[in-house]
């Protein structure tokens, strides 16, 4: 690539698309899950907590490997996808979304958990006494008072999905336009000594990540009420 030539932004756009979809779905999944793990009392809760936290400590290749097997033509997830859409999940955009969601889940849950724990329980009790069911109290009291936590979770999840490498490489491969996201493209540019493109794409990711972290700091600052 010659300096000044317009670079191929499609991996960056694909990354953003992946991150957006995965983040949206993650919030839908993480909200009830985190709420349950924060407020409910049941036996073996610590076992579930440790399980959803596993992606924080496991090498991405391990998660990627298991997902690769599960999403393949002989895996459970793969067979399910085959039945629904006619093709297995592995090496598809949908498969990458599932993989990103699983790997990013604890990152989305952490700010939510902090926000839920910070919520004054008396607000919930007041709501119950005033006649609200737990579900109504969640939408009318919990959610409006944890919006910053929700936004922080969304931003962190988005950033984490944007930077995902190991897991998406394992289950997505590198199909241009379909699964070749920015982090994978950078890796390939470096492997093929195309440093100019690697520079540009890396710089774009650095800028996006920096903006995202600024947003998180800003949200955390605005979190306190009275």
């Amino acid at each position, binding site marked *: 690539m010659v300096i000044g030539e317009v670079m191929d932004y499609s991996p960056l756009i694909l990354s953003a698309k992946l991150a957006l979809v995965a983040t949206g779905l993650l919030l839908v999944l993480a909200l009830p899950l985190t709420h349950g793990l924060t407020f409910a009392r049941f036996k073996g809760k610590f076992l579930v907590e440790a399980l959803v936290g596993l992606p924080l400590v496991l090498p991405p290749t391990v998660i990627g490997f298991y997902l690769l097997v599960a999403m393949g033509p002989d895996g459970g997830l793969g067979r399910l996808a085959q039945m629904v859409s006619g093709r297995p999940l592995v090496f598809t955009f949908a498969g990458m979304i599932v993989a990103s969601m699983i790997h990013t889940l604890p990152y989305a849950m952490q700010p939510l958990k902090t926000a839920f724990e910070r919520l*004054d329980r*008396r*607000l919930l*009790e007041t709501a*119950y*006494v*005033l006649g609200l069911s737990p579900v109504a109290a969640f939408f009318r009291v919990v959610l*409006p008072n944890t919006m910053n936590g929700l936004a922080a979770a969304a931003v962190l999840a988005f950033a984490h999905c944007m930077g995902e490498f190991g897991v998406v490489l394992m289950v997505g491969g590198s199909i241009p336009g379909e699964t070749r996201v920015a982090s994978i493209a950078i890796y390939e540019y470096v492997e093929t000594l195309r440093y100019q493109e690697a520079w540009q794409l890396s710089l774009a990711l650095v800028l996006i990540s920096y903006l995202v972290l600024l947003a998180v700091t800003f949200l955390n600052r605005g979190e306190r*009420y*009275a």
Partner: protein
Amino acid sequence: MLEVSIRKKLPHFTVNVQFSCGSGQLLALLGPSGAGKTTIMRVLAGLEKPDAGRIVYNGEVWLDSEKNICLPPRQRKLGYVFQEFSLFPHLCVEKNVAFAADNQARVRELLHRFGIWHLRNHKPQGISGGERQRVALAQALAANPRVLLLDEPFSALDVQTKESLRGEVLAIKKQFSLPIIQVTHDLHEASLLADVVLPIVRGQVAGEWLAGILQGEKTIPKEFPKGQEAGRYAMEQAVRRIMTRPLAWSPGI
């Protein structure tokens, strides 16, 4: 009429109380902090389960541990004003009061009645402590409660604000004919507001006074003036004696 019988084991003692409170009556649970008063209120509201007990409101069973009945808070339809502010920080004063109300006219009336109409667009964090407790009272009453629970609602306020809010409670007692149960550690407050005072010591009822009886002369020392002041003094002395006594004291007056 609210009939209550509760037994619940706490780490250092067991709460074991029986009492009843009629409509239009204010019953004060009086005792030092850590005596189990708030636990009694939370069990009444359905926020905690006792080990054993029975709560009946006008024939409707809210709790019967023998029959395994325990209505959730939302089905008991009561108003609960907490010790500290429990208003919703994301809502303005008006929306806080209207939170569980089905009648907007009633909300407006309560906003006027408690002198908080001009604050209706403020958030709770932007108004004073006394104003917040007025909002909390209005919020509880707007939901048309059948019983009103007040858990030390004025303890964090200055003397003047306390005085005016006590006036509000007396007015509520007159206007809304419902059983009111108030927790307090302030003897003066209990004697001013309550029809019946139950001193609670380590989870037990340590005696019962009908406030009216104490207006009499029998227990008043000569050097003290007669009338209401004297009655209050007599009650103070009596409660002080009980509250400093060991547990094995048996009630009687």
